[in-house]
């Protein structure tokens, strides 16, 4: 499934844009929530409770084929602040893994990053275990298939909280049953520019799915990027949930493609102008706030997709989205950056990538 047979992808495997429709669907994610029997959920757990959960999980991993480096362990407490945020920016961990009040990690919080698989598993987030697979393009069944295989490998060594009627028991009842949340991160400028998106999103809501902003729950919409995910997790099999979502996202893609055709038929010069202006700003700007970058990347991405900018690759745009975030920029600079320095550093990085077509920042998260 991944080109990286031996090494962890550290959340970057999807950047290659190798999946189907990857110009529109950046990534597909499937996550499974699991909890251990006999332990309070994380919201009521003491430091000792979380450590006990961590020990049980780490012990289980040692009994699987992932022992000896197949799943690389990162204890959040032991990670440098910047590396934790790099993981956050790559969606390997969520904000919930850091303490809400102090912003620091609680004892027992950790993430396993799997080698050779585009997958990771958080320990002691809202649920004891959050296993996630993140792949390029529209590949729900593949992402679910991988999540299922990893779950099958690990769960025989754990006493999981499971109820014959309610299925896998989770801290929030909105995740109970399968514990499965699948989502596609889609770029839908055609629907936005033709003002069709409200109608499409209403339709999505009517079939039991949710649309959110770029960074998921509670996040704002930026650059015409939307996350489409399942809302219910109980009463249907995982395959049915995933298949339904794949079908709906497939229809959204078709509607987006039609909208782009209309744009190019009725407003080709305006669209081309938008694309080239976005490219021009990215190519020459000396200061770029992240929000502006995302908005400009939206225009350029549309241009790449419509072959207005044929020399750029989707993978470069994916890299620009991830590597131009704060912690990644600071890692590249080797120091903390003020807001203005960050904007300048970002603009410099974007210019270099577009000028030279070079890739991302080398980063060793174990360092």
């Amino acid at each position: 499934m991944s080109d990286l047979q031996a090494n962890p992808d550290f959340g970057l495997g999807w950047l290659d844009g190798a999946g189907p429709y990857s110009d529109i669907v950046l990534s597909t994610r499937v996550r499974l929530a699991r909890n251990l029997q006999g332990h309070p959920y994380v919201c009521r757990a003491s430091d000792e409770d979380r450590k006990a959960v961590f020990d049980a999980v780490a012990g289980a991993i040692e009994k699987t084929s992932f022992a000896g480096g197949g799943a690389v362990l990162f204890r959040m407490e032991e990670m440098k602040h910047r590396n934790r945020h790099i993981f956050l920016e790559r969606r390997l961990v969520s904000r919930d893994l850091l303490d809400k009040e102090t912003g620091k990690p609680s004892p027992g919080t950790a993430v396993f990053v799997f080698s050779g698989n585009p997958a990771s598993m958080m320990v002691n987030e809202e649920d004891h275990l959050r296993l996630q697979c993140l792949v390029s393009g529209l590949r729900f069944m593949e992402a679910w298939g991988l999540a299922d295989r990893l779950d099958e490998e690990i769960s025989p060594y754990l006493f999981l909280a499971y109820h014959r009627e309610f299925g896998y028991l989770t801290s929030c009842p909105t995740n109970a049953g399968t514990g499965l949340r699948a989502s596609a991160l889609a770029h839908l400028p055609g629907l936005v520019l033709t003002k069709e998106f409200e109608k499409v999103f209403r339709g999505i809501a009517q079939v039991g799915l949710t649309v959110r902003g770029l960074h998921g729950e509670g996040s704002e919409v930026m650059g015409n990027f939307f996350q489409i995910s399942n809302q219910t997790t109980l009463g249907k099999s995982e395959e049915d949930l995933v298949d339904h979502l794949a079908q709906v996202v497939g229809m959204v893609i078709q509607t987006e493609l039609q909208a782009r055709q209309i744009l190019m038929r009725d407003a080709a010069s305006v669209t081309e102008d938008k694309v080239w202006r976005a490219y021009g700003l990215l190519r020459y700007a000396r200061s770029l706030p992240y929000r502006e970058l995302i908005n400009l990347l939206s225009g350029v991405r549309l241009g790449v997709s419509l072959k207005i900018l044929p020399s750029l690759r989707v993978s470069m745009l994916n890299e620009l989205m991830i590597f131009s975030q704060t912690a990644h920029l600071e890692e590249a600079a080797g120091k903390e950056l003020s807001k203005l320095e960050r904007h300048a550093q970002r603009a410099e990085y974007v210019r270099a990538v577009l000028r030279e077509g070079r890739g991302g920042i080398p980063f060793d998260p174990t360092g």
Partner: protein
Amino acid sequence: MHDPERVCDGPSCSNPAVVHLAQIENGKVSNTKYWCKSCAEAKGISTKTPSSFERSDAAAEESCTFCDTTMKDFKDTGLLGCPHCYTSFEPGLRRLLNRIHGSSQHLGKVYLPPDPSARDLDARVQALRRRLRRAVDAEDFERAALLRDRIRELEPAG
């Protein structure tokens, strides 16, 4: 129904009536009085609508026997305290799960604990067969082969 035109029945009071007090005898409304807020309170009639917590004080006090989470805690945070909460608050949670998901019956993967009972094994095989049929129908033969292997592992040889 609240009638915005109705005025208070209180002596020499013309405030809008907000309290309707109906007396029911033998299933029939025999006597209805209409009061404004201040006249109703002067007669000792409470004009406060009980909040949902006040209405379900007893339910809110119920707590999980394992982790002491109460229904009130759950309502405040939206999170349960431990897996045992599902048993402690089972009837209410079943209703809630039905409301959220349209069902409370899990139809997905069946977990096999490290020490499975015969019933666990049977439920697991049934679920795998269901998924196998689906995979074959969808012509997903790779998945079908995987599921068939999982079934074979659980079924006695021969």
